[in-house]
C-alpha cells in the first residue's frame, strides 16, 4: 500500500508541475503588460521600466517562472493589487467559506443521490427508476446559476422564508455554525447539490443494478440470507466507487462554485475570483486558481488512495 501511495505521488508530481506552469502563464496570457492594470495611463517610460524591474518582469520567462515557483513553494503567492494584502491570506479565508458550501452541497447530493440510486437500482424500470433518471438528466442539464435565481425568486422574493444573498446577518465575510448563519447556507447549498445528486444517482443506480445481477447475490439468497443481509453486501460493494465519485464531486464543486457564489454573493473563492477578474488583480487571480487546482490534484490523489484501500480488487498498478 505504501508503495502504491509512493507511485501515485511520483505520478502526481509532473501534473502538479504542469499546473503551476499553466497558472504562471495565465498572467502572461493577459493582453498587454501584466503591469498595465497597476500603472497610471500617463506613466513615463522610466516609471514603467522601474516597475518592470521591481516586479521582475524584465527577466526572461523561465527565470521569472523559477523565481515565482520558489516564492510559491515558500507559501508566498504575492500581494493582491487591489487590497495590498497577501494573496495567501485572502485565498485561505475564501477557501474556508467555499469549502463549507461545497461540503454541505456534497453531503446533500450524496444523501439524495444514493437514496435515489438505490431505489432505482433495486426496482429497474419502475416509476422510481424513471424519476431517478429524470433527476439525473435534470441535474446535469440545468444551468445552476439560473436554478439559484429561481430558488431566490421562490423562497426569498415571493415567500420571504430565506435570505437571498450573503453568508450571515451581520454582512460579515465569515460563516459561523449557528442557526442565523445556517439560513444563509440553505439556498446556495441546495443549488449546488443538484449536479452531484444527479451524477451520484446515475452512478449508484448502475452500480446497484450491476451488483444485484452478480452470482454471489444469488448465492447469498440461496443460502437463506434475508434481504437486509443482502443489502449490506450490496452497500459494501458499491461504497468504494460511490465514495470516490463523491470525493471528485467535492473538487468539482469547489472549483466550479464561482457562478453560484456570484448569484448568492457568497464570500468564497468564486466571489474572490470574480473580483480578481474585474479589477484585473492578476496576482490574486493566479493565486486563487493555483490553490484551487492544487486542492483538486490532492483530492484526486486522496480519492484514488482511499478507493484502493477500500476495494482490494483494484490492482495497485
Amino acid at each position: 500500500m505504501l508503495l502504491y501511495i509512493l507511485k501515485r505521488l511520483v505520478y502526481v508530481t509532473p501534473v502538479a508541475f504542469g499546473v503551476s506552469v499553466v497558472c504562471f502563464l495565465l498572467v502572461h496570457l493577459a493582453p498587454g503588460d501584466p503591469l498595465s492594470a497597476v500603472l497610471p495611463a500617463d506613466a513615463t517610460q522610466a516609471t514603467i521600466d522601474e516597475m518592470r524591474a521591481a516586479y521582475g518582469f524584465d527577466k526572461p520567462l523561465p527565470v521569472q517562472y523559477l523565481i515565482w515557483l520558489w516564492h510559491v513553494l515558500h507559501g508566498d503567492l504575492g500581494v493582491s493589487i487591489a487590497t495590498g494584502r497577501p494573496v495567501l491570506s485572502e485565498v485561505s479565508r475564501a477557501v474556508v467559506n467555499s469549502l463549507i458550501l461545497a461540503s454541505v452541497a456534497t453531503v446533500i447530493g450524496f444523501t439524495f443521490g444514493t437514496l435515489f440510486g438505490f431505489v432505482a437500482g433495486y426496482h429497474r424500470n419502475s416509476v422510481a427508476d424513471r424519476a431517478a433518471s429524470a433527476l439525473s438528466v435534470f441535474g446535469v442539464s440545468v444551468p445552476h446559476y439560473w436554478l439559484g435565481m429561481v430558488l431566490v425568486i421562490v423562497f426569498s422574493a415571493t415567500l420571504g422564508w430565506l435570505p437571498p444573498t450573503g453568508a450571515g446577518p451581520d454582512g460579515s465575510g465569515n460563516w459561523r455554525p449557528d442557526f442565523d448563519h445556517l439560513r444563509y447556507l440553505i439556498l446556495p447549498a441546495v443549488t449546488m447539490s443538484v449536479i452531484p445528486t444527479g451524477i451520484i444517482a446515475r452512478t449508484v443506480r448502475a452500480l446497484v443494478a450491476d451488483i444485484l445481477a452478480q452470482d454471489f447475490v444469488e448465492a447469498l439468497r440461496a443460502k437463506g440470507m434475508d434481504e437486509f443481509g443482502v443489502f449490506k453486501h450490496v452497500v459494501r460493494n458499491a461504497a468504494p466507487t460511490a465514495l470516490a465519485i463523491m470525493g471528485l464531486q467535492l473538487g468539482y464543486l469547489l472549483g466550479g462554485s464561482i457562478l453560484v457564489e456570484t448569484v448568492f454573493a457568497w464570500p468564497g473563492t468564486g466571489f474572490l475570483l470574480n473580483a480578481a477578474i474585474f479589477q484585473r488583480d492578476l496576482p490574486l487571480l493566479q493565486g486563487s486558481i493555483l490553490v484551487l487546482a492544487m486542492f483538486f490534484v490532492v483530492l484526486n490523489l486522496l480519492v484514488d488512495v482511499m478507493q484502493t484501500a477500500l476495494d482490494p480488487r483494484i490492482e495497485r498498478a
Partner: protein
Amino acid sequence: MTAPVTAASVALDGGVLAAEDVVHGPDAAFVPSRGFWGHVGHRLVRDPVAMGAGAVILLVVIIAVLSPWITPMDPYKGSMLRRLKHVGDATYWLGSDELGRDMISRLMLGSRLSLFIGVTPVLIAFVIGSCIGILAGYVGGWTNTILMRTIDVFFAFPSVLLAIALSGALGAGIFNSIVSLTCVFVPQIARVAESVTTGIRKRDYIDAAKLSGASALTIMRVQVLGNVVGPIFVYATSLISVSMILASGLSFLGLGVRPPEPEWGLMLNTLRTAIYVNPVVAALPGLCIFIVSIAFNLFSDGLRAAMEIRQ
C-alpha cells in the same frame, strides 16, 4: 484470429467493403444493406425521447437562423415607460426587460449568439481533440506519453474553473470565451479519441492496410478515422449541453457577450435586478438555456443508445 466485432468496426468495415464489392465486379449477389449510419438513423427515429429532443433543437436552430426577419418587434429598441411588462401583455407577449425591450424578440435573437458561443467551442475542440487523440493513440510510444501527460495537466482543473481562469485572463469578449471553452474541451475529446484509437490499433484490418503498403497518414485518415469518428462524435455531442451552460455562464459573469447584444446568459444577468418586480420575466432566459441544454443531453443519450456505445 478474429478481432472482436463492435458496432463501430462493423460500421466502417461495412462501408469500405461495400465499396470494394462494387469494384470487384457484379458477379457477387450483393444486396445493398442499410449500412451502419442507416441502422443508427433507423433506431434513432424509433426513439420518441430523442426525436422530441431533436425537434426542439431543430426548432431553436430555425428560430436562430430566421430571427433577424421574424422577431415581432425591434429587439434593441427600448422604452423607459414600458419597462418590465408582465408575461401575457397585449403588446409584449412575454413581457419586456429592464430597459423596456420586447422579451420574445430578444429571446429569439438571443438564440443565435447562445447557440453560436455554445456549439462552436465543441466543434473546434472536436476537430483539434480528435487529431491529437488519434495521433497519440495510433503512433503510441513517446508521442503518446508526451501528448497525454500534457493533457492530464488540464484535467487537474475542474472545467468551470479552467474556463473562467482562461477567459478571465484573456479578457471579456465572444472570441475569448470561445477560445477558453475550446481549451476546456480539447483535452476531454482528445482523451476519448486516444482511448478509442488505442483500442483499434492492433486490429487485423490495420495490419492488412499496413501490409498493402498504405502510409501511416493514409491509414489514420481512412481506417482509423473512419472507425473512431462515431464514438468521438457521440462524446462531443454530450459536451454541447455543458458548453452551452458554461458559455452562457461566462456571459452571465460579464466575460462573454457584451451588451446590448441579446444573449441568454447576459440577459439573465441584467434581469437579476428585476426579480422582485417581475420574477417570471427575469427567469425566462435561463429557462431557454435549460430547455436547449436538456434537449442536447437527451438527443446525445439517444444517439449513444442508437450507436450502441456503452457509456
